[in-house]
């Protein structure tokens, strides 16, 4: 009787062992894992693809509100060559700087530094735009950063001189 019992026990032990060995048979496992992996990859692909749509929708909404208003910002003789003046464009809070450069051209940029938003000034001795916060320099002729931490150009405000007045007529975020 006891022997019998023992045997039975052994039997089930063996079966357990068989199951363990079964688990070691990895082929199935690998296949199933590959399936799961591909599904996850596919899911990520779809998620990333769909993630572009909100930006598209927002772009459509913002696309209409262009900055194209024409606003008078200065009298043409108000600034001497090498002088600058602050104004706002296109909205209150979008501070900007108008510079009459050494070669007597008008240029204007939004003057929030593209590094950490400090106001940018015109340094007329060196004919350059300077952000004093971390010594960022921008080329006054095109608004591109030339030294210091800023990486992006200043938004450029398009100006027009007409009938003795300087007008802002638009804005370009990326330029040149």
């Amino acid at each position, binding site marked *: 009787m006891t022997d019998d019992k023992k045997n039975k026990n052994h039997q089930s032990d063996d079966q357990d062992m068989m199951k363990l060995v079964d688990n070691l048979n990895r082929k199935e496992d690998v296949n199933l894992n590959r399936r799961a992996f591909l599904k996850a990859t596919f899911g990520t*692909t779809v998620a990333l*693809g769909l993630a*572009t749509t909100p930006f598209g929708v927002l772009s459509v909404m913002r696309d209409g509100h262009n900055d194209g208003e024409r606003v008078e910002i200065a009298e043409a003789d108000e600034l001497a060559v090498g002088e600058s003046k602050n104004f706002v464009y296109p909205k209150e809070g979008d501070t900007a700087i108008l510079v009459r450069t050494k070669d007597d051209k008008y240029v204007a940029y939004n003057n929030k530094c593209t590094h950490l938003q400090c106001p940018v000034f015109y340094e007329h001795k060196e004919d350059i735009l300077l952000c004093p916060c971390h010594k960022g320099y921008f080329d006054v002729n095109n608004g591109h950063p030339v030294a210091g931490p800023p990486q992006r150009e200043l938004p450029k405000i398009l100006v027009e001189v007409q009938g003795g007045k300087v007008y802002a007529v638009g804005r370009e*975020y*990326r330029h040149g």
Partner: protein
Amino acid sequence: MDKKKLSFLSIFVFLAINVVSLVQVIEGYYGREYGHVYTFMFVSLLSTALATAAFFIWRKEEYKK
């Protein structure tokens, strides 16, 4: 290369395309270059659609027996 493997691998290509386009879309959005946004959104949606097709092809092959 057989159909199954091809569709399997293509999904990774589409994933890469989507990563790149999402980056471009975000950059374009913050740079207010909306044309850029639309282009890459289109690319990304197209690649998503193709990935979906590829996925179903792969699934059909994988599970048929």
